[in-house]
């Protein structure tokens, strides 16, 4: 369904599937890797979307949802995807766009079309697909539990101000604290492999959840969690439980799995110095190991 209607842009030199130079196409094609549910086969579906100015991948998916018809003219269900803030601060809308993992809200159509005449969307490959572009990132949040990524305060009554911190300490911790659990670092990591379990027949939800958690804990924890462990080990109160976090990083699936590919830091949309955190964790766990030999 190619829509040839004009969109108010006076300069539309490059029609059809162009998108180069200053011209805008009237419409463009979007390929989406769709999957109805976990365990189902996936297949590419092509849509043609009318070009509008200032579009991003979110608005492309919104247009498809409003009019879910393929290029062949077949009526299909709207594509499922995850998003919320659309400002690149919530971490929800991660997907693989033209082969690159990123947030779909900040993926601008003009820029994508300048690189490629069509847009290709697929779900992250390191997490189980729930449906279409939606994946289950529960494992990512489980990792934060494992490293106890929190400040272990006594409670929430009024106990006065927190510890004083220098500007340089804040400048070190703030970037780490911007991690929005989007999962880009995990998608790009060669050591992070997909864990997809299915519920046995007759297995209770609670038992299944427990089994999943145990499996997650055995597999690689990921750069984001290592970085969060370092964040809390830098905090004056968080530091009081530093040994516990380091021990968690020394367990199966911990820091040792990291292969130092450094892909994580390259794809992080927040430019978090993940490899610096990993290096720091390496040194700290070494010291911790020596401490443990001496029975401390």
């Amino acid at each position: 369904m190619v829509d040839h209607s004009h969109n108010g842009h006076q300069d539309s030199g490059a029609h059809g599937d162009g998108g180069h130079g200053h011209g805008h196409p009237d419409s463009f094609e979007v390929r989406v890797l769709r999957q109805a549910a976990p365990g189902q086969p996936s297949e590419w579906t092509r849509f043609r979307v009318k070009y509008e100015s200032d579009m991003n991948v979110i608005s492309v998916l919104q247009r498809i949802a409003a009019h879910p018809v393929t290029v062949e003219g077949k009526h299909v269900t709207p594509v499922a995807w995850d998003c919320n803030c659309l400002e690149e601060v919530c971490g929800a809308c991660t997907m693989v766009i033209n082969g690159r993992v990123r947030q779909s809200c900040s993926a601008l159509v003009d820029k994508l079309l300048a690189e490629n005449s069509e847009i290709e969307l697929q779900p992250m490959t390191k997490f189980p697909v729930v449906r279409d572009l939606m994946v289950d990132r529960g494992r990512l949040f489980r990792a934060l539990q494992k490293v106890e990524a929190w400040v272990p305060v006594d409670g929430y009554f009024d106990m006065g101000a927190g510890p004083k911190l220098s500007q340089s300490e804040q400048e070190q911790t703030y970037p780490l604290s911007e991690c929005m659990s989007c999962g880009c670092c995990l998608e790009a990591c060669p050591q992070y492999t997909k864990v997809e379990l299915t519920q046995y027949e007759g297995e209770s939800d609670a038992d299944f959840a427990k089994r999943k958690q145990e499996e997650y804990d055995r597999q690689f924890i990921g750069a984001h969690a290592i970085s969060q462990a370092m964040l809390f080990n830098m905090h004056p109160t968080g530091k009081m439980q530093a040994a516990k976090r380091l021990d968690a990083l020394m367990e199966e699936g911990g820091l040792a799995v990291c292969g130092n590919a450094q892909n994580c830091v390259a794809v992080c949309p927040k430019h978090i110095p993940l490899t610096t955190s990993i290096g720091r964790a390496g040194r700290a766990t070494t010291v911790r190991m020596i401490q443990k030999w001496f029975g401390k």
Partner: protein
Amino acid sequence: MAKQRVMIVGGGLAGLAAAMKLAEFGIDVDLMSLTPVKRSHSVCAQGGINSCNDLTRQQGDSEWKHFDDTVYGGDFLQHQPPVKEMAYWGPKIIDLMDRLGVTFNRTPEGFLDRRRFGGTLYKRTAFAGATTGQQLLYALDEQVRRWETSGNIKKYEFWDFLGPIVDDNGVCRGCVGQDLVTMEIRSFPADAVIVASGGAGLIYGRSTMSMACTGGAASRCYQAGVKLGNPEFVQVHPTAIPGADKLRLMSESARGEGGRVWVPTKPQDPRDPKSIPENERYYFLEARYPKYGNLVPRDIATREIFDICVNEGLSVEKDRPCVYLDLTHIPRAELNRKLGGILEIYEKFQGVDPRETPMKIFPAVHYFMGGLWVDYQKSADGGLVVGSPKNQVTNIPNLYAMGECDYQYHGANRLGANSLLSCIFSGLITAPGIQTLLQSSKGAAAELPTSFFDQAKKKHQEKHNALLKRTGGGENPYLIHQELGDVMTKAATVVRRNAQLSEAYDKVCELETKAAKAAVSDTGTWTNQNVVFTKAVIDMFPIAKAILKGALLRDESRGAHFKPDHTFASLKATEPTAKRAEAEKWCDDFEANTKQYLKSTIATYSADHPQITYEDVDTSLIPPRPRLYGLVGAETIEQVWKERSAAKVAANGNGASVPGGAKVAVGAH
């Protein structure tokens, strides 16, 4: 014997604050959210969080002054006791968030750094880079994860709240939710249900709000009998970046650093803006407000930009209203130094360098001051009784509301950097009240007969099934939503006129009928976002109607609610005696208006049209006074008002003892 549990709906700042506090009390909590709680809309707040602090205190600030600024900024439309309590908790809340590890910016000595925000003369605002909301949310998310790990909090993420379960005595006993992945509908018995579901920005189509801000949860409570307070008060931010999917904030500091707002004199001039000569540009703010220029107050900027596009047809684009906000005359290096962070946001989402090309901006719906009606227990000193189960409870017993979805703290207009405070505060004040409630009630909701809960579930299941059967030929819910957004944005944002409001109301009723017949394009039973969205759209209408009706009936201008046909005019006379007489008349009119309209709008749901009544506002601590910004003759009015206030104090001997009480502040905003 079953244990008592509390259900919290929404995992933003308010929901998480309440969850961790309840967990600390040893109360088991279920936490239901449309998104993983770490992805809640609170992450979008950039600026900061207000409180009186050790430094400002020595410059004459106090919790009372923060309270006064909040009430004055809100045009006196909020009950004062909860606001007072919030201002007094402010410093303690910031201390708590500091202890929880929020990476607040620091001074060279290591104290929390503060910045100044609108509506005050003091540097009250603590901040963490340009992502304060995100940082505060993460600190609470981490604490909740800690309690989740120890089994005290159970999260239900990717769940939609379908409605409260209310028994024959009108008491809330739990709620019904739907798993957005498996589509399972389930009843949750609960000894208290707290709704903390945020604003309802999606009613306006595109706004600065996140996609989860549908207003669905609030609407379902409203339809179950919870009253709405001040629904017509919706804050519009003057400068946002229009996107095809949402409107993103552009900070006011762009104008502060010399940004100029203009439109081409030729409507929709297609030329590159930089090639349009000066004499074909209309710098309408500078022309209309020579004294203030581009830095007119927020509400005036909002109204003028809206007016030039919507009513004068001078928008830069035809299909999408916007004006130029131009920084290109300022040297690049200077822009990078002063505005780097916010210009990067524009560049990231527009793909255009605002240092080279004028930005396109337009006002956007930003915050709901109104919302679910909630109660409070006033203390002897005019604050709240901490631990009273009345705090934040709706008119349905055991059903609570807090955060942006309640109507309690911001009156007719919210001050910047006060929303993060009100969200955390309302969460923290709700928890001890619920602890008292649970201690005083026997047994647990989970002990009620399962048939009671099954019945509630069945009702929602049938509704859901009926929706799935509606296929083919029906109205498209996405297009209905778009149309609703357009109607609401045109009639009920910046400038409100009764004729437009009436027309919009009829149109919304018409769309509601269409929505009731909307067809779903996905009839599946697995992760069906289509049917979930359709439900949310259907539930937008009751709130949209309450907004329009409330706005229509309020024939005055107050805070964010501006009716050009009902404003207080400037003084015209120049001769002193005539001017004085005119000021006296002005004050008479102001007093008469206060008497008639200084009341909360209360909307009660009914299937056809909302029933509107009014509630007196508790202004016992700070007497209402006029906001005179930009009015000609303000000094004379102020003089008359001061004399009247002094005479009243002399007559009844109170009021003067209230610090900062009967003072007219001019130009504070």
